[in-house]
């Protein structure tokens, strides 16, 4: 418990420092002005969400081959945190888009593939909630999770393959892309902070999932006894 509280405190301090850097250290962008400061939170959260989904995918694969409960628990924990991150991305994006584009939403390749990603992981959690038998739930969940992950590379490459409404990539975007050095430092600090924060949430959610498994075992024992 003590280590988890300490980890949580470190994660919160990091995101506060990241917010401070985004508001007070990063220079104001020339064309978008102060609105660009949303990017440090929006893109860092998106990155952390993608990595949470990768962890879910890895755990799903491991569950299929090894059938160990811990992989199922870690898979669902990281899927929920990835979904929370994607929800934040889908909400902060339109708040940026309205003043920047004049519209809240458009069915652009990046926006659409991100929305599909959100729907896929909502379906993953719904599917799990509908199956009562633990082994069946874990296996079907893992198989669906592997399928759902296919959309993650699509989201990543959508702004590289199709040039539509969403801004072009500034990180790993090839020639002509890139950030001012101070902006870059602030951005990568925010990426680190959001990853630590997401990891903290995954640990908390994992503890809950392990407890659920304990309850199921105890319930079976109580019913059998």
């Amino acid at each position, binding site marked *: 418990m003590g280590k988890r509280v300490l980890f949580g405190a470190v994660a919160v301090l990091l995101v506060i420092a990241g917010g401070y850097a985004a508001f007070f250290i990063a220079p104001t962008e020339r064309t978008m002005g102060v609105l660009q400061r949303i990017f440090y939170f929006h893109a860092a*959260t998106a990155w952390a969400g993608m990595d949470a989904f990768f962890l879910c995918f890895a755990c799903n694969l491991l569950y299929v081959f090894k059938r160990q409960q811990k992989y199922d628990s870690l898979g669902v924990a990281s899927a929920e945190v990835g979904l929370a991150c994607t929800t*934040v991305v889908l909400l902060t994006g339109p*708040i940026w888009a309205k003043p920047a584009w004049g519209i809240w939403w458009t069915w652009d390749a990046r926006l659409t593939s991100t929305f599909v990603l959100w729907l896929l992981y909502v379906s993953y959690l719904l599917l799990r909630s509908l199956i009562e038998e633990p082994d069946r739930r874990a296996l079907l969940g893992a198989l669906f999770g592997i399928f759902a992950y296919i959309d993650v590379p699509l989201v990543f490459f959508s702004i590289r393959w199709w040039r539509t409404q969403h801004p072009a990539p500034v990180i790993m975007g090839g020639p002509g892309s890139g950030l001012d050095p101070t902006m870059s430092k602030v951005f990568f600090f925010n990426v680190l902070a959001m990853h630590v924060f997401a990891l903290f*949430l995954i640990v908390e959610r994992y503890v*809950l999932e392990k407890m*659920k498994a304990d*309850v199921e075992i*105890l*319930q079976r024992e109580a019913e059998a006894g």
Partner: protein
Amino acid sequence: MKNLNSVFAAYLVGWGVFFLFYVTVAKRTADLKVEVERLKGVVGKR
């Protein structure tokens, strides 16, 4: 400063989502702790 409201709104909404998520996880964990203790009591009595 132009659009500062949007910047604050984005941070507020984003952190609001994370806060709600954390609260639901903490609430579910607390409820399950009570359930584990209850079940341990039931199983232990036998």
